[in-house]
Every structure is written in structure tokens, then in C-alpha cells.
């Protein structure tokens, strides 16, 4: 995802001199081509996320299209008030880019896990929040962000994610995309969990359970109508995210379902509401939190039995 993001961003920057990338002193090994090709459009703000974000707002107010970049927890939570007051309240064309959303920086420890970022960001009025599911979705949502502008939060995975879509899907702002249609359970995924969810659906299929798989990169604006439609046509809805089960995709879906009067049960699969203090790589930590294909399919089977 990161690779696709930088490739597409550079393409856009070459044709739009108003596009500016600011990093909070991160991006070693990935920002260099951008710096080389568009040096006047690149700023290293140093390890100073509050100033980075406030400056981004100021640049945008004066006509720039700004992308701020860092590991996902830093450009969101360290400077939350600058995002709320300076960027969102002013409707500034700033896209906050967080790399390594979720547990991607697993072994670096709790400080580098972004597991509450979606919940926090989606509470801010006027701020679009998007977590693409694979490199193809990354290209699609980035195109939307460039054309329609910020304020927005773009939550990326890290690198090496498998492409699920064969080509760039149509995921216009606020729209989910259906990957397969089934009848029993609706699996809704956001962010880098998408390949795992597709695999889990394959496993369920082997067990005779028919799944619909929907990728919902946009958390804000959220595709409420798709959630309502899925709830009315399936026995169970399951949200899967590499994020706290509190306030993210599962929270957004729960809000919609509760107010719709739907009888469809919801199961939220995500990071449990506690800090990670054990060391482990992303794969290990996903296992700890039940974010593997085996765990997801097992929990779905169990839940369907209980209904």
C-alpha cells in the first residue's frame, strides 16, 4: 500500500505544483524518489507533529494541497487538536496520511500501534476517514482524495499487502465495494484486513456457509445504506478491522444497525479493548487478537450456531 501511495502521489505531484508532502521525519527508504523529483514540494517538519499539522493547515489556507505523513499514531493522536481546530474546522485541503495502521509496527511496541486512530478521527466533523483494503483500493481512494481534497485521514497498511482486487475498484467517497455475494453471513472489512477476510470467506464456503464480502474503506462518510441492506438480507453481520473494537468500523456499523431497528446480530472482530504489552510481529499480534482467517471463520461458525 505504501509503495502504491508514494508512486501515485508522485505522479500527481509532478503535474500539480500545489501538491505538498510534509513528513514528520519519517519515510526513510520511501520518500526519496519524491524528494528527488519534487524537492520544492517536500518538507521535513522534523519530529514535531503539532507544528507539521498546523503548518499544513496554513499552507492549505494559502492554496496548497497538503499531505502530512508519519506512522499512523503520530500524525493523528499527537496533534489531535491541530487536526480538529486548524484542519477540519477550516475545511483545509489537508490529507493526513498514517502508515502502518493497526499492528503493522508490531514488535516496536505499544507506542507504535495505531489501534484507536479510526475511532478518534471519525469523531471529528468534516474529516473524511479512509482505510483502503489493498494496493488497488489505495490507488482508488488516493485519486478521490486528490481530486476532491481534504480534510481527510488516509490510513494505510505498511508494505507487501496482497492485492485482492484485480484492478482499481470503484470506491467513490463514502461507498463500500462488494467483492462477493452470499446469503448467510455478511463480512465487512476495513483496511488491511481485507485479504484475511477474503480467505476466511473461502474457509466458510468450504464449510457450506455462504458469505458476502464487502470492503468498506470509507469509515467517514460511511456507507450506511449498504450496512442496512446487508443486515436485511443476512443472518449475521461481522465487522473485521485491525483496530480497537471500540469506535471503529464495528462501532460505526453498530450505530447504523441500532438506529435502523434491524434484528440482524452484529459481531465485531478487532483488537480487544486493552493495550498490547507483549512483543510480537504483526502476524503474531493478529493471532493474539483473533485476526486470522482461522479465528474469524471459527468465530463465525460458532456465532451462527448460537443464533
Amino acid at each position: 500500500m505504501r509503495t502504491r501511495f508514494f508512486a501515485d502521489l508522485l505522479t500527481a505531484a509532478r503535474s500539480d505544483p500545489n501538491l505538498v508532502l510534509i513528513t514528520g521525519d519519517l519515510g526513510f527508504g520511501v520518500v526519496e524518489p519524491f524528494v528527488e523529483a519534487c524537492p520544492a514540494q517536500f518538507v521535513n517538519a522534523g519530529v514535531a507533529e503539532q507544528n507539521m499539522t498546523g503548518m499544513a493547515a496554513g499552507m492549505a489556507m494559502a492554496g496548497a494541497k497538503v499531505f502530512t505523513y508519519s506512522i499512523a499514531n503520530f500524525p493523528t493522536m499527537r496533534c489531535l487538536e491541530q487536526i480538529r481546530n486548524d484542519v477540519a474546522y477550516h475545511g483545509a485541503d489537508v490529507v493526513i496520511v498514517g502508515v502502518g495502521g493497526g499492528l503493522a509496527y508490531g514488535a516496536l511496541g505499544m507506542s507504535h500501534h495505531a489501534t484507536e486512530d479510526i475511532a478518534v478521527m471519525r469523531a471529528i466533523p468534516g474529516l473524511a476517514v479512509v482505510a483502503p483494503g489493498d494496493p488497488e483500493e489505495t490507488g482508488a481512494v488516493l485519486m478521490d482524495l486528490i481530486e476532491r481534497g481534504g480534510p481527510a485521514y488516509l490510513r494505510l497498511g505498511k508494505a507487501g499487502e496482497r492485492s485482492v482486487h484485480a484492478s482499481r475498484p470503484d470506491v467513490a467517497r463514502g461507498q463500500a465495494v462488494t467483492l462477493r455475494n452470499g446469503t448467510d453471513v455478511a463480512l465487512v472489512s476495513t483496511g488491511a484486513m481485507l485479504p484475511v477476510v477474503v480467505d476466511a470467506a473461502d474457509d466458510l464456503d468450504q464449510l457450506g456457509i455462504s458469505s458476502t464480502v464487502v470492503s468498506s474503506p470509507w469509515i467517514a462518510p460511511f456507507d450506511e445504506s449498504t450496512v442496512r441492506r446487508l443486515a436485511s438480507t443476512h443472518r449475521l453481520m461481522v465487522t473485521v478491522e485491525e483496530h480497537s473494537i471500540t469506535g471503529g468500523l464495528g462501532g460505526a456499523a453498530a450505530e447504523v444497525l441500532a438506529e435502523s431497528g434491524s434484528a440482524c446480530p452484529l459481531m465485531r472482530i478487532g483488537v480487544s479493548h486493552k493495550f498490547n504489552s507483549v512483543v510480537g510481529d504483526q502476524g503474531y499480534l493478529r493471532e493474539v487478537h483473533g485476526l486470522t482467517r482461522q479465528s474469524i471463520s471459527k468465530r463465525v461458525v460458532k456465532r451462527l450456531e448460537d443464533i
Partner: protein
Amino acid sequence: MTELTSSELSRKIRQHVLRMTHHGRSSHVASGLSVADILASLYGEVLRVDPSDPDWLDRDRFVMSKGHAGAAVYAALSETGFFSPESLAAHYQNGSTFSGHVSHVGVPGVEVSTGSLGHGLSIATGMAWRARAVGAGWRAYALLSDGECDEGSTWEAALFAGHHRMSNLIAVIDYNKYQSLATTDETLTLEPFADKWVAFGWDVIEVDGHDIEEISAGLDIDPRDRDRPRCVIAHTIKGKGVSFMENNVLWHYRPPSDEELALALAEVSE
């Protein structure tokens, strides 16, 4: 621009601030009085802005970082033609856009909304960076409180602007030496204040923050002559112009009563 002289403008600002905080039962009367002469310098002499075209692309950008003195900004804008002074009666009223902390929505001429401290210098720095990037001649100004120099974000911006030699960025600090509960020295001393800015790569001058001519000389600089951002430390008196409000933390929060308003108006109108 205004027909008023700068000293008349500062007097008008003080009168409006007193009436607005009295009428609205709002706080920060002393902060508004503290910055009246700085704003009179900016709007009366320094800023290249056009009240008939608040969004003029080549305007100087002014960021009121100490948003709690918003009443004084509204007053300055109204007296320089951005909107009618009669609008000021809406300050702090239900349904009004004239909030206690300065807000851009619905108020022509307000560049940026602030209120939480430590935001304005970063925004102005971003604006200045942009002006330089596109080769524009306009300048970016930020008016800071001394108390907001407690905020780390102020120093993040200072570090960046100094490093990048943002000569089109001018910070002016309303150094009245009082903050919410006590003096700056009793709270978190800023001294040696000028030395700190110099150490961050700024060109610093100290002025009498109630001498408009001196303030304007510090602010009205040509970026082309310079190689670093300018910091104007304006030594001011909190509550300036009203004897019983000067240097008294009570007036950071308390609005004037009817009687106090009359006394205060008489003093600032002399």
C-alpha cells in the same frame, strides 16, 4: 482602510472591548486592552488588506493566535471597514458568530479561528512557507500571548521558521507578563525571553507595546532585506488604559459592571 488615525483606532478598539465584554458578560477584557495598540498598528498602518475584498489573494495574512482577545480583533475589523461596528453588539449573544475566541466563520476579515493556545504560529508559518514557495510578496503575521509560549507547539514552529529562515514571517508577542492565574514569572518564567527567540534563529526586537509608532517600525519590515523571521516582543500592560484593570489578574475573567464600564470608558476616552 480606515479614516481614523492609529491612535484613534486604538481608542476605538478599547471602547469596543469594554462595551462588548460588559454587554456580553464575557472574559478577557484586560487581554483586549493589552493588544489594542498592537492591533491599531497592524490594521491602521502595517497590514496590506482590503476591507472591500477580504479574500484578496495578495493580502498579508494575520493570525490572531491569542484568540481569547478576539473582541479586540472584531473591534479592529469593524473600525477598518470589514463590517459595521453595530455588528459588535452580537458578541457573545445566542446565535451570534462573534464568539469569545476569535472565529472566522461568518466574520469577514478573520483569517483563522483560534482559542486553544499554541496554534497560530504554526499556521502563520505554513502560510509564510506557501508565500515563499509561490513567490508571493505578502507576509504572514501572528500575534501571540506570552502565556501561550508555555505551549511546546509554539517552539516547534519557532524552531522550524528559524531553521528555514522564514523572513516573511513576523511574530509579535503581547508580553504583558500576566497569564490566567498569576504573572508569567510566577507561572513559568519566560526569561531570558528575547534570548530564547534569538537562540531559535529569529531576529528579535523589543518595543513599547503601547507606542504605535515603535510597534509599526518593528512590524513593517521588508522580507527581502532579511534572512530570518522577525520576533517583536511588545512590552505591554495587561488592562492598559483602565487604571483599576491594569496588572490585575481579576480582569482576565471578570467583565465590567455598569459602573465600572462608565469609569473605564471615561479613562480610555481621555
